[in-house]
């Protein structure tokens, strides 16, 4: 007998986990307080949908602006640092060193400066995403084959045409990888910030309900966050696949956050 296909096993594991989530609390193998049955969580999610939906909107707003900061700045600075040799040798070591700082320790500073409203979350999550996006863009820009530019020049491309017709398309995969990474990090950053100090947002609901020991609502909020980040991942991957159809291998299938090279980590922290 051959082993079942990995995809099948993966689905089975997922189904099993969902089933256990329902069964274990019902059989009182684990206490309700620790893990309420999935059905209960879903019921709460449905009945309180306005609360959770409203909180998600706040979170999405913050995430959206944080992505603009993380990706806008990250891709721009990354392209400069990666593309200009003198900037690269001057600044890349500095950025790599700064990268070791656990950025979350800056969050209290941002709340002191900007208050506990959306601003502090946006700035924190933007900064949280900035470094990895910047480093991975810098790494990506460096691998643009100089041969492409030479070929374009031999065909009479002007400087502007070299940028628009070669450099920009050649860096699209990097930019998209950066967007995906930056988005995932923005979500992580916003959720962490909301959980720490906030008065609104889906992360705030986790903390609020935890302190009043309302486990079904804690899990409902957790479920909403899980769905949000998985949806973002699936959507950004699909978009990337459509835009970067020409790539044979590599980034498009890689995870948003691969902690393997210095280019990307931090994604998973928090």
């Amino acid at each position, binding site marked *: 007998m051959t082993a079942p296909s990995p995809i099948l096993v993966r689905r089975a594991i997922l189904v099993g986990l969902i089933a256990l989530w329902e069964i274990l609390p019902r059989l009182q193998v684990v206490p309700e307080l620790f893990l309420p049955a999935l059905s209960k969580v879903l019921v709460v999610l449905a009945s309180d949908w306005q609360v959770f939906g409203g909180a998600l909107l706040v979170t999405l707003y913050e995430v959206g602006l944080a992505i603009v900061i993380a990706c806008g700045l990250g891709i721009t600075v990354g392209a400069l640092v990666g593309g200009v040799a003198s900037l690269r040798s001057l600044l890349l070591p500095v950025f790599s060193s700064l990268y070791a700082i656990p950025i979350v*320790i800056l969050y209290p500073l941002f709340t002191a400066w900007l208050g506990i409203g959306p601003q502090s979350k946006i700035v924190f999550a933007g900064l949280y995403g900035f470094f990895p996006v910047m480093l991975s863009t810098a790494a990506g820009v460096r691998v643009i084959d100089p041969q492409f530019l030479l070929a374009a020049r031999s065909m009479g491309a002007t400087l502007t045409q070299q940028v628009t017709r070669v450099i920009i398309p050649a860096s699209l995969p990097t930019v998209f990888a950066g967007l995906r990474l930056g988005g995932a990090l923005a979500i992580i950053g916003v959720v962490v910030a909301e959980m720490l100090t906030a008065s609104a947002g889906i992360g705030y609901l986790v903390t609020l309900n935890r302190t009043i020991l309302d486990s079904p609502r804690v899990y409902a909020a957790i479920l909403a966050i899980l769905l949000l980040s998985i949806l973002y991942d699936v959507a950004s991957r699909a978009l990337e696949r459509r835009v970067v159809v020409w790539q044979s291998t590599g980034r498009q299938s890689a995870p948003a956050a691969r902690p393997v090279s210095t280019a990307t980590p931090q994604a998973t922290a928090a």
Partner: protein
Amino acid sequence: MQRGLQTLIRLALLALVLGLWEVLPRIGAVNPMLLPPLSDVATTLWGLLGRANVREAIAVTTLEVITAFAIAVPLGAAAGILLAENEYLGAIFKPMLFYVFSIPKSIFLPLFILAFGIGFGQKVGYAAFTTTFVVMMSATAAVESVRGDYILVARSFGATPAQIIWRIYVPCMMPVLLETLRISMIFNFTGVMIAEMYASRTGIGHLISNWGENFQLPQLFAGIIILSAVAIAFNETVRRLEARVGAWRQ
């Protein structure tokens, strides 16, 4: 550009930042309540290091960081090597790992509080939990960085399995392993900080969180400086080592 010149420019940049930090609040260009002058922060920092509760917090945090690291690294390494060496398990679990990566792991903090209560166990547990995933990913990559043909060549010269491990795997993986340790430590540190800032009665993370809430900005800045200095120092030390054992890599 020459190295000396670069170092000079970097030092100049640093001096500029530090100088502005001192001057701007002094001349009132920025609110000294929001950005206390550097010299005030330095004085506060010195005073803090002498205080008993701060020393205790540093000790607690250090112990948490080390314990979480000691749990996560062997666990993550074992799981990562298993996934890299066993193709079937790898095919099942690696795609799942990728998904886990884009999930904010802080949402599981409440579970650790329910399981361990607020204290050492919760903080260590959470940090170890987040770090294990990182170690797993990097360990998988580390194993996969050993090229099959090196092993084939070694075998063709009659190397024993033990020799293959010591003469091929270890030197090949050394730089990647150090990188793994370095990056895992960044995550581990972050994990402990988040856990302490979320719910804790002691630890540096708890202190800076409080200082922030009470608008004690000189203390807050002092705390940030201490933590950043420790993190950068660790990172740079391991990076030096990495460069040394990884000189053959390009």
